[in-house]
């Protein structure tokens, strides 16, 4: 490299931005995160629309099936719900009676 090249390089070096620039990096990452958020929102919206559309299409088939299943399962689900309530209510008393309550 000649002396002239060194001089040229030194002059170019005066335009050099800092090696670390938190303000610039933060501004870039803010835009990246904003872009990512927009992409996520677009994806979720598209998925929701597709799901809603699919449900609308299959609802005439799904509805009778759900009604039939729910009628069959209603007694069993009712029993399960009662058992869960009883466990929650009595569970505390049993634990305190046994001296296990903190």
């Amino acid at each position, binding site marked *: 490299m000649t002396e*002239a090249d060194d001089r*040229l390089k030194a*002059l170019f070096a005066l*335009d050099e931005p800092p090696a670390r620039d938190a303000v610039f990096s933060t*501004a870039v990452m803010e835009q990246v995160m904003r872009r990512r958020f927009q992409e996520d929102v677009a994806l979720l919206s598209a998925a929701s629309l597709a799901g809603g559309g699919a449900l609308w299409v299959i609802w005439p088939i799904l509805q009778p099936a759900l009604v039939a299943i729910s009628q069959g399962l209603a007694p069993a689900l009712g029993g399960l719900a009662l058992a869960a309530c009883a466990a929650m209510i009595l569970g505390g008393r049993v634990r305190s009676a046994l001296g296990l309550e903190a």
Partner: protein
Amino acid sequence: MSPASLDEELVAAAQGGSTEAFSRLVERHQQALRAFLRRACGDWSAADDLAQETFLAAWSRIGRLRAGASVRAWLCGIGYNKHLTAVRSAGRERARAKRYEEDRPVVSEGKPEDRLALEAAMAELPAEQRACVALCLAADFSHAEAAEALEMPLGTVKSHISRGRARLMQALGVCDD
């Protein structure tokens, strides 16, 4: 760990969706990209805007960056294309030129007349020649790396650099042997 292998690791992580890795790539390459764009377009504020746009585009396209490729050259290539697009948009250029004059920092180092002469000579170079000079004479890119970044044949890059260098030396009044 060498800078190239660290870059490769960061690129792989960013390709997997890590914003933290991408943020480190931004930190590592912002200086080179901004310096190149400042020299290529001569307008500091426009160059920084272009650099931000470049990183944003890089985030979207990071999946296309092949393993082992130079991140610095890839970013400069995207930045250069964005600069060419911006140059074509004349109205935007005029507004930025005005802002540039307002925002232009006062630099105390170096002989002001040399800086002005260099700036004027750079402004007169054709865009392609200017980009080649900015990469190879100012930023230590190899000719091959510049050719890859600017998507130009190697011979064209060499001839741009040779002509550009001669014009800059002439503008600075340097007797080149």
